[in-house]
């Protein structure tokens, strides 16, 4: 969509007021600033609901979440080569609350000690942290693997997986 070159002042003021009111102007918390509740994260990282369709995209894209590398999801029959390292995600919304799912996606080890699952919203505490997949060193905190919005999108998809 073409952005208008100028915007009527009143409209701009209305948008500003609306976003400020909904808390959208605030940056999402850094991974180290998350508030944990026994492995769960109660607050949305973005302050607004995620988009389940975008979440499905993140979950099946190699360069993003690639959740299907390890987990099978029957609701995605068109996605080939789903791995079997972790548990199936069918019905996962019946087993965990949204807050628990958010915490598991962000850093599963806070729920399942020793889990093989990487933390997708985690920036530090690593052994030999690297710069993405370059093999080169990088300073912590690293950018998390997924953005706050992508985490919320994934959570929004996961809560649809009821038995």
């Amino acid at each position, binding site marked *: 969509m073409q952005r208008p070159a100028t915007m009527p002042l009143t409209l701009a003021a209305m948008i500003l007021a609306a976003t400020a009111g909904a808390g959208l102007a605030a940056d999402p918390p850094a991974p180290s600033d998350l508030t944990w509740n026994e492995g769960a994260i109660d607050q949305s990282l973005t302050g607004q609901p995620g988009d389940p369709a975008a979440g499905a995209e993140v979950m099946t894209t*190699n360069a993003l979440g*690639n959740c*299907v*590398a*390890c987990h*099978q999801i*029957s609701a995605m*029959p*068109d*996605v*080939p*080569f*789903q*791995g*079997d*390292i972790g548990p*199936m995600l069918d019905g996962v919304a019946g087993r965990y609350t949204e807050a628990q799912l958010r915490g598991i996606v962000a850093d599963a*080890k806070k729920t399942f000690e020793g889990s*093989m699952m*990487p*933390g997708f919203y*985690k920036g530090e505490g*690593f*052994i*030999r*942290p*690297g*710069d*993405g*997949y*370059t*093999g*080169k*060193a*990088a300073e912590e905190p*690293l950018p998390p*693997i997924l953005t706050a919005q992508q985490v919320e999108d994934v959570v929004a998809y996961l809560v649809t997986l009821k038995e």
Partner: protein
Amino acid sequence: MTMIERARKRRMHRNLVAGAVAATLSWTVAPGAIADPVDEPTIEVNGGEFSLPTRVEPADHVKDALPEVMSGWLFRDADTRAMQLDDFENQGMIFADSGAEAWDTVEGTEGKSCASCHNDIESMKGVRASMPKMNEAGDDLWSMENFINDCRVNRMGAEEWAWNSQPMKNMTAAISVQSRGLPMDVAIDGPAQSWWEKGKEMYYTRFGQLEMSCANCHEDNYGNMIRADHLSQGQINGFPVYRLKDSNVVSIHQRFVGCVRDTRAETFKAGSEEFRALELYLASRGEGLPIEGVSVRH
């Protein structure tokens, strides 16, 4: 997870994949391409010239980690497996042939080739199976690459080869082929013990942003699928391997670099102390498996 649970999961996975393949029609992979490790007791190369066992009893120092020591060949698809059954089909042999040619080629200020001191390359039989090992001075653990460069510099007066250079990989391929069929048997006691301990520690260290150790995939999950990849035990008896993805032979350390990099970690360098230690530990995990080099993997 019990073996039955694993088997059930795999069966479900196969059904799922078969369904997906049927649904998309664009996938040319046969359903049989994804399966449990195949039930083949041996790799029969060149119509039986070599009969290489694919499963052996674990040595004492790996009993707690692996119930059975298995060749990575068992985990590959039928086409890839077939390529290793015939030296004419095995593209890795082209590189081994180049290495054998270099063996007889005079280089350096001393006017020598490898053959000047070691005679026919067949004299290298057994070398690959004992690598890596302590050097003669007893103060360092050397991979085959270190021994080759020591000869080149100190006996031939020639330039060192870079660890993953083509001539180096060709030479390690040519030397490895001489040991085909001999069981892996590295020394892990005496001065090698501290190297082995260090390698073992590395094996279980969860590196990088993905926080993954070698063991996460190759001990806890061999036989399972990580996306389209069928995880093996990560044994190194087939190295150097001809890797279809690279259309080239790949060294042990080259593969290590790739694995550590893929955990979103700062990797170690090929030839580093760390990777030589890891090489020793992995060689010891595969004790008893026959040297397959040059094997074919994807």
